[in-house]
């Protein structure tokens, strides 16, 4: 089981502001103001040997927004046995340049190309980084490519 994180220098820059909480018309209760959201999609492969969880998390402190990819991979060799601990559990801060893509992916869903990247190369890169066969910054780039 591994848990690691990779930060991107560009991630700290302000990129957008949260959803507006403007005053509603008279008589209508104002909507709640979102300050954080997290969506995650967990896929069980048809052979039952792999479970991949790809999540997007948006946080704000009022002035700036941060996006994080959460990535968890479970593997087993026998589909009749429980997965146990995750093979990889990785948090990747999303580069500021990809914040708009992250917002789109969270709200509109991942495209086929994005899901292909997430369930194929990104999963393999996360595992390789955990095993030490791929540098973490390279794995981080591959995982972030899921938002391209």
């Amino acid at each position, binding site marked *: 089981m591994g848990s690691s994180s990779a930060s991107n220098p560009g991630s700290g820059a302000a990129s957008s502001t*949260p959803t507006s909480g403007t005053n509603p018309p008279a008589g209508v209760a104002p909507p709640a103001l979102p300050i954080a*959201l997290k*969506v995650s999609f967990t896929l*069980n492969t048809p052979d039952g040997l792999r*479970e991949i969880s790809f*999540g997007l998390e948006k946080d704000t402190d*009022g002035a700036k927004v941060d996006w994080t990819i959460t990535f968890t991979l479970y593997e087993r060799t026998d589909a009749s046995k429980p997965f146990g601990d995750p093979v990889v559990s990785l948090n990747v801060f999303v580069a500021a340049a990809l914040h708009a893509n992250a917002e789109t992916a969270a*709200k509109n869903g991942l495209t086929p190309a994005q899901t292909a990247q997430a369930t194929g*190369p990104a999963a393999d890169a996360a595992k390789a980084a955990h095993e030490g066969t791929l540098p973490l910054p390279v794995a981080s*780039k591959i995982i972030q490519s899921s938002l391209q």
Partner: protein
Amino acid sequence: MRHTVGPQLSRLLTLLAAVAGAVCAQNTASPNVLPDRNPSQKGVLPCKAGTDFESDGYRIVKTTVDDPFRFLYWIGGKSRSIEAQLEAKLDNQPFTYKAVDADALGLIEAAQFVPNNGKGFLVRIELVSVQNCDPNAKTLELIYRIYSTNPPKFLGGATESQDTAEKSPQTTTGLAQSGSPFHFTPSGGYNRSYGAFGGGRFQAAPNIAGFHLFDTFTAEGLGSYSMRSLSAALSGSVDRLGWLQHSDWRLNYLNSSAPAGVARLKTAGLSGQIDGQTQPFWKGTVLARFGGLLQGGNMQGAVPGGLLPPQTVSNAAYGLLRGYAGLSSRTSHNVFSVSYGLELGSVGPSARVDWRKHIGDVADEFWVPIGDHKPLEVESRLTIGGIQAPHSIPLSARFFGGNGGGGNGEEFFIPGDSWQIRDAPVIRAIPANRLYLTGQGAGADRFASVNLTVAYPVKSYPIMPKDLSADPEFSSLLHGQIVTAASVEQNYYTWKDPNFGVAISRLASLKPLLDALQKAVDAAQAAHPNQLPDAFADCTGSIGMAAFYVGDALAAKSDAQYGDLLRLLQPGDPLNPSVQDSCVGELNQSLGDPGIKTAAAAFDVERTVILNDFNRIDQKAAAQKAANDIAFVNRTLNTLFKDLNIFSVSPVAVFDTAWIGPAKGALGGNRIGPGGGIRLELASYVNFTFGYAWNVNRQPGEGKGALFFSMGVRDLFH
């Protein structure tokens, strides 16, 4: 047998009263079965975007956890526990982003609200919001909105899946409690033929992974002073991607005895059946189903002399073969099924066809939203049947109508819940099996019936709170996850495309070419020390990345191969430039090394060949198949969120007409039965329908009408 109260009637009514009490008590401080769906928001202050609530010194005064499935007690318990923990940690504390975001969400996720069944996909959405921000008092309230779903890809046929969504929304969303493999569901009912009857269904479905021929055992029984119906079944199923999406099979034993006017009908039989369901087609709106059943046993029919129709035997060993096929459709506010069944039967140990039975059944249900979560529901059903008996037929195999099951103890043509083909005339104004006297005696050889039910909820509580269903952010997030699911399916079908197989078969040839290119780059770097270090590093990085994708694609055995090959062939990613961009466009543009040029060209030629194969993949077909796959799930979930209620009280109007033949004078012919009643549904807990229908053109010996009453109670083991 569907109409279902019995020996446990008083206990069930006690449960109902308890549940109703909980519903009525929802505004009290005690734990509620139903959350407040539309909390009052009078005097709520807006929260200004861009505010840093932490540095501005805000204090949390209230914390709420909002989960639409809180009415399910196993989720409600966790939800209330989490809410209590968050209140203890956050209420009256200074607002900090760490505490309200990462710490709180960590606590929520650790609770694992949704069971992961290890199949298909699981979606989780968590939304943290602030409201009622008082800039003077520096106070605010926190709302945690949680939604999880793990929908089964196979949701059964259209009309049956709608019934499941209404009575057991947790099944549709994959939130059924996954601990105990045992389930017991009491049921009961009343009609004048049987009196008050009761019983239940026991199901054992061990949580076993992998494929097993039989994975579920079901035993079901109903009884009263005058009837009994017992069945036991072993069943299994498999879901797959492809034209045949779902298949199930069942070994079933049935034993029943029921009165039919002056007659008594008994059946005992063992059957084996296998059914299949295709992938949806016609833009994901229609699916086809088909199957077959082989059955043998005994039928006995005690009937006074003179009432036995020609070519009909009272008691007989029998064997029969049934084949059936149908289409089902589901659109946004309509579900529809049409089914045809053919039965070939023989009396005694004979290969001869002694009788043939034809059944046609058309069911439709549509609902029109009139007001928020107040759908006008219209259910209609047309069933016709005919028997040809060139030799002989057991009495119990003929048609017996009324407001209960068929005379043979089965209301439907095939056992099980996933596909319900009605095979007897139904008219709620006449007690079970009492529409049966024809010009030839007891039991009809042809029939037609039309049943219409209209219901409108006068009081309802939506499953999805209005705050949540009307929240564009939340709706968008949910929709996005369904899109992701469709994308995953599309990749699977792309991976299955034969052209993908051709492309992947050539992939091994790229590895030595990448190695050769790396050697050329190494040689060039040795020949040009300290020159273009960044360009050399980028080129080497791109070759390494390409080798990584090639290696992973060759090692993978599943649709993960598609992602590796896609990224290798169509990089288009500024974070990960291609070999051509880095080594030829960037490095060799400045270096002009002939070794790199030759090796890169050789790699590009082979890559182009593979790319051409890859580009022949029928992406449009894959996208359509994926859209079809996900369409039924998507529409069912949409209905659940936008139209369905966890609690509703609805007046019901019914209209039935049934005809049996051959008619002669007052015997056989047409009956008309209008009526009305009330329906109460408390999703996942209890539902019942109570009413009365009049037999407008009743004939001698028939009553003025009949009560109809059915009741279903939640699984008592959960």
